[in-house]
C-alpha cells in the first residue's frame, strides 16, 4: 500500500535533522495559523496563490529563492563547522549525514536558491522593461512557479522522510546507481529536479516568447535594456540545455527503476556518458545564472552612474558570444578522465575564450562609471564589489582551464573556492543588488539603506574570508567532500574558513533585519513617483507598485533608454507627456491551475520516490484532469474599464508632476 515507506524512514535516531525539521514545521504552522486567524487566507489565495500576474509570480519566485538561500546557507554552516571539528576527529556529523548535507547544499543553492531568484527577477522586470502588460503565457507562468516550489518541497521533505542523495549535487554513476545508492536519496534528487526542471523549461519558453514577440511599439531589439538581452540569452540557454538534463536524469531513473544500463558500465552502458551529458547541461547552467546577473549589474551601474551603459552594442555581442560559447566547454569538467592532449587542448582553449567577452563586459562596466556621477547606494555597492572580486574568480577560472593546471587542482578546494568566488560574486551579489534595486518597484517603498549596507559589508568580508583560505588549502592538495582529515597543514585554513562563515551569518541576519525594519518604516521609505533611483528604463515609467496592467497605455519607444528620453523631455518642458486617451484593458483571469497541478505533481514525485504506484497514477490523472479543466475554460480575460485605468494613471501622474515641479523649484532656488 505504501511502497517502501515505513516508520523507519523517519530518522528518529538523528537529532539534527529532526530538531531542524521540527523547528521549521513549528514556524511554518505558526505562520499559517497566524495568516488564518488574521483572515488573510482568502486574500492570499485570490491575490497570490492563484495569481497569473508576472509581478506577483516574480515576487513569489524571489521569496522562494531567499528562503532556499538561507536553507542552503545553513547547510554550509554545518559543513564548515563540522570540518573544523574533524581534524583527527570524527566531527559531529556521521558520514552518511555529512554526505547528504553537501549534496543538499549544492542542489538547493543551484536549483532552488539561485535559479528561482534569477527567474523571479526576470519575471518581474522583463515585461515592465519591455513596456508590456504580462508575459506571453500568464497561466503557464504560474504553473512553472508552482512546479519549482514542488521540487523545493520534495528536497526539504527528504530531511525528515527518508534521506537525501549522498552522491554530491551531480549524482554521478556508478555511485548513484541502485547498487551503490540503494536508498531513496537519489530518487528524491531525481524527482525534485525533474519536476522543477519542467517548470524551468516552461518558464524559459515563456520569457523567450515574451521578449521576441511582445515588445512595446518602437522597442526594437537594439533598444531593449541590457537586462532584457541577458534574460533573452539566459532563457534561450534554458530552452537548449534543460532538455539535456531532463533526458539524462530520465536515463538514470530508468537505470534505477527498471534495471536499464545507460550508465552502469555493464551491457554496453557507460558512466562517462553521464558526465558528458550532465555537464553539457551543467556548464550552460552556469551562464543561465550568470547572464541575468550581468544584466542586473548593467542596469544598476548605469542607473547609479547617471549614464547610459558604455558600449551597449558591444555588450550585446559579448552576451550572445557567451551564450554560444557556453555550449562548447563542458569537457573541462573532466580533463582528468584522460581524454588526451588534443581533446583537452581544444576544450581548454574554448573555455578560456569565454573570458574574452566576459572581460569586455567588466571593462565596459568600468567605463560606464567613468564620467558618471556615482551614487553609492546598496545595489551599487554590491555591483562594485562584484567587479572587484569577480575578476579573481575569472582569473582562477582561466587557470583551471589550462589542462595541466587542472590536473592538480581538479576537485580540490581551490576549485570549490573558484566556483563559489564566481557564483557568489556574480549571482548572489546580483541577486541582492537586484532585490534592493527593484524592491521599491514591487512594493512601493525602498529598503532601509543602513541595514542594507551593513548586510553588504558583512557578506563581502565574510565571503572573502571564507574562500581565500579555501583557495590556499586547495593548493595544499586538499580535496572537497572530506568528512574528516588528518593532515596538519590543512587544519588552520579550514578553521579560518569556518570563522569567516560567522561573519557571513551576520550578513544574513542584517539582510533579514533590513526587510523587517523596512516594512515597519515603510511610510518614511515610501516611493510615490515610481522612480526612486532616477531610472532609465520603462519599469520606472509606471507607478510603484505598478497596477495589474503595468501601463495605462503602451509606451512608445523612440530610442535606447526609453524612459530616460521621456523624463528628459519632461524636465526640459517642465510638464509631463500629454495625457493619453484611455481605453479599457483586458487582463487574464487568475487561475488555480498552477497550484493544483503542483499539488498533484508533489503526489507523483513523492509516490515515485517511495514506489507507491497507485498514488503516482492518481497524481498523474489529477494533473491531467487539471489541465483539461483549464483547457475547457470559458472566460479567459476580464476587462478593466477605461475610467478605472484613467483614475489609477492620474494618481501616478499627479505625484510625478509634483516631483517634477519640486525639482524645478529646488533648481531655481
Amino acid at each position, binding site marked *: 500500500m505504501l511502497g517502501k515507506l515505513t516508520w523507519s524512514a523517519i530518522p528518529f535516531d538523528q537529532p539534527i535533522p529532526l530538531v531542524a525539521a521540527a523547528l521549521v514545521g513549528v514556524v511554518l504552522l505558526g505562520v499559517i495559523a497566524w495568516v488564518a486567524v488574521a483572515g488573510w487566507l482568502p486574500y492570499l489565495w485570490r491575490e497570490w496563490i492563484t495569481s497569473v500576474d508576472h509581478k506577483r509570480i516574480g515576487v513569489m519566485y524571489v521569496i522562494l529563492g531567499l528562503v532556499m538561500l538561507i536553507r542552503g546557507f545553513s547547510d554550509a554552516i554545518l559543513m564548515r563547522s563540522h570540518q573544523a571539528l574533524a581534524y583527527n576527529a*570524527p566531527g559531529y556529523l556521521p*558520514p552518511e549525514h555529512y*554526505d547528504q548535507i553537501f549534496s543538499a547544499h549544492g542542489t538547493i543553492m543551484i536549483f532552488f536558491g539561485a535559479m528561482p531568484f534569477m527567474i523571479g527577477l526576470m519575471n518581474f522586470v522583463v515585461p515592465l522593461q519591455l513596456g508590456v502588460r504580462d508575459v506571453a503565457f500568464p497561466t503557464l507562468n504560474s504553473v512553472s512557479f508552482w512546479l519549482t516550489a514542488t521540487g523545493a518541497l520534495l528536497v526539504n521533505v527528504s530531511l525528515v522522510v527518508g534521506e537525501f542523495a549522498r552522491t*554530491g549535487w551531480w549524482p554521478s554513476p*556508478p*555511485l548513484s546507481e541502485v*547498487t551503490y545508492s540503494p536508498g531513496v536519496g537519489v530518487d528524491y534528487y531525481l524527482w525534485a529536479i525533474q519536476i522543477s526542471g519542467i517548470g524551468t523549461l516552461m518558464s524559459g519558453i515563456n520569457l523567450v516568447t515574451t521578449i521576441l514577440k511582445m515588445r512595446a511599439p518602437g522597442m526594437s531589439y537594439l533598444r531593449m535594456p541590457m537586462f532584457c538581452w541577458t534574460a533573452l540569452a539566459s532563457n534561450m540557454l534554458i530552452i537548449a540545455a534543460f532538455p539535456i538534463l531532463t533526458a539524462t536524469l530520465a536515463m538514470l531513473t530508468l537505470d534505477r527503476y527498471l534495471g536499464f544500463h545507460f550508465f552502469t*558500465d*555493464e551491457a554496453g552502458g557507460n558512466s562517462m556518458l553521464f558526465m558528458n551529458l550532465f555537464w553539457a547541461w551543467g556548464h550552460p547552467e552556469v551562464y543561465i545564472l550568470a547572464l541575468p546577473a550581468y544584466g542586473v549589474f548593467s542596469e544598476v551601474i548605469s542607473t*547609479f552612474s*547617471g*549614464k547610459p551603459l*558604455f558600449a551597449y552594442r*558591444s555588450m550585446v555581442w559579448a552576451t550572445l558570444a557567451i551564450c554560444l560559447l557556453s555550449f562548447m566547454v563542458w569537457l573541462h569538467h573532466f580533463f*582528468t*578522465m584522460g581524454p*588526451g*592532449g588534443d581533446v583537452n*587542448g581544444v576544450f*581548454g*582553449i574554448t573555455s*578560456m575564450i569565454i573570458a*574574452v567577452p*566576459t*572581460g*569586455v563586459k567588466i*571593462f565596459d562596466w*568600468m*567605463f560606464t562609471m*567613468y564620467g558618471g556621477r556615482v*551614487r*553609492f*547606494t546598496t545595489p551599487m555597492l554590491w555591483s562594485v564589489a562584484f*567587479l*572587484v572580486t569577480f575578476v*579573481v574568480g575569472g582569473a582562477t577560472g*582561466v*587557470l583551471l*582551464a*589550462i*589542462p595541466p593546471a587542472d*590536473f*592538480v*587542482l*581538479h576537485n*580540490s578546494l581551490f576549485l570549490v573556492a573558484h566556483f563559489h568566488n564566481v557564483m557568489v560574486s556574480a549571482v548572489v551579489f546580483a541577486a541582492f543588488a537586484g532585490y534592493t534595486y527593484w524592491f521599491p518597484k514591487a512594493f512601493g517603498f525602498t529598503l532601509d*539603506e543602513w541595514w542594507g*549596507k551593513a548586510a553588504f*559589508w558583512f557578506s563581502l*568580508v565574510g565571503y*572573502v*574570508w571564507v574562500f*581565500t583560505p579555501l583557495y*590556499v588549502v586547495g*593548493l595544499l*592538495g586538499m580535496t*572537497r567532500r*572530506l568528512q574528516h582529515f*588528518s593532515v596538519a597543514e590543512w587544519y588552520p585554513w579550514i578553521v579560518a574558513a569556518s570563522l569567516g562563515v560567522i561573519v557571513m551569518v551576520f550578513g544574513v541576519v542584517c539582510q533579514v533585519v533590513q526587510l523587517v525594519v523596512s516594512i515597519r518604516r515603510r511610510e518614511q521609505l515610501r516611493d510615490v513617483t515610481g522612480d526612486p533611483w*532616477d531610472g532609465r528604463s520603462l519599469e520606472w515609467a509606471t507607478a510603484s507598485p505598478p497596477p495589474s496592467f503595468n501601463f495605462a497605455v503602451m509606451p512608445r519607444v523612440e530610442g535606447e533608454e526609453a524612459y530616460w528620453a521621456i523624463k528628459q523631455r519632461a524636465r526640459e518642458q517642465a510638464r509631463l507627456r500629454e495625457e493619453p486617451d484611455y481605453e479599457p484593458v483586458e487582463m487574464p483571469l487568475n487561475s488555480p491551475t498552477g497550484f493544483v497541478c503542483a499539488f498533484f505533481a508533489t503526489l507523483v514525485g513523492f509516490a515515485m520516490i517511495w514506489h507507491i504506484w497507485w498514488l503516482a497514477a492518481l497524481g498523474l490523472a489529477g494533473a491531467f484532469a487539471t489541465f483539461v479543466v483549464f483547457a475547457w475554460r470559458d472566460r479567459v480575460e476580464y476587462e478593466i474599464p477605461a475610467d478605472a485605468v484613467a483614475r489609477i494613471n492620474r494618481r501616478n501622474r499627479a505625484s510625478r508632476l509634483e516631483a517634477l515641479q519640486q525639482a524645478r523649484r529646488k533648481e531655481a532656488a
Partner: protein
Amino acid sequence: MRGDAARPQRRQARVSAALPHLGAIAAAGLVLSGCQMSLLNAKGPVGSDEANILIVASIIMLAIIVPTMIGTLAFAWWFRASNTRAHYRPDWAFSGKIELVIWSVPFLTIVFLGGIAWIGAHRLDPAVPLDSDRTPLRVQVVSLDWKWLFLYPDQQVASVNELVVPAGTPVQFVLTSSSVWNAFFVPRLGSMIYTMRGMTSQLNLMADQEGTLHGLSTHFSGDGFPHMQFPVRAVSDTAFAGWVQGAKGGPRLDTAAYGELARQGTVDAPRTYGSLEPGLFARIVDQTIPKGPGPAQGAETGAPPTVKPKGGS
C-alpha cells in the same frame, strides 16, 4: 540623492575591498612556496612543470586583474556624485579606441594562455611516458570501497593503502576501479586521473627524491571516501628491493582474497601480498570478476556498512 548617507563607507570600500584580496594572494604565495604540502613545492618532474604553469599563468593574470581592480575602485571613487572636480559626461557611452583595447587585452591574453594550454595539454598528457634512461616501474592501481590496491606485476607483489616506489625511476600507472569512480592523486608528484570500472586510464609520474608523500582520492566515492588516503613512500632502489622482498612473505592475492577486499569497508593499516594470481588485474578490468558489491552485500549483517569516522587514514 541617496548616496549621500554613504560617505563614511566609501573610503572603506576602497581599502577593505582591495586589501584582503591582494594581501591574501601575496601571503598565500609566501606561505605556499615553503609549505610541506604545497603543490607548488613539487617532488617530481610532472608536478614541477605543472607548478611552473600555475605560477606563470597566475602572474600573467595578476598583471591584468590587479590593474582592473584598482581601476574599478579608482573610477568609482573619483566619479562619486559628491566630487565636484570630476567631469560629468552624462551622454558619453562609446569610444571606438577604448573598445579596441577592451577587446584586444583579454583576447591577446587568451592567445598567450591558450598556447600554454595547448602545449601543456600535450606535453603533460598523463598517458605520455616520461623521459628517462631507466626502465619504468609498472604499477596497476585498483580503487576499491574504500581502499587502494597497488599491484606490482613485475615484482609479483601487491599492497593495500601504501604505495612504495623507487625515487628517480619513472612509474607507469594503469588504473581501474572495482566499483564507483575515484581519482588517484599524489599532489606533490603531479597529475591526477580518474579510476573507472571496466576501463583503464594511464598515468606517468616520477618522484625525484626520497621521502613520504600524501596520496588521496579526489573524486567522491561514498561514505568511506575520507579513508581513500594513503602514504606514498619514495625510497632508494635498495630499499625498494628490500620492501619487495619483505612483501614476498605475505599471503597470496587471488580472486577470493580480492573478493574480500572488494567488500565495502576500510582497512586500518597498510598490508601487502606476496604473490599474485596471474591475470588478476586483466580480469578486474574486463569485469570477469564481479564488481564491488556495494552496501547490499557489502556487510555480513545486511545492514549498511559501519564506517567509523576516525582521524587516521
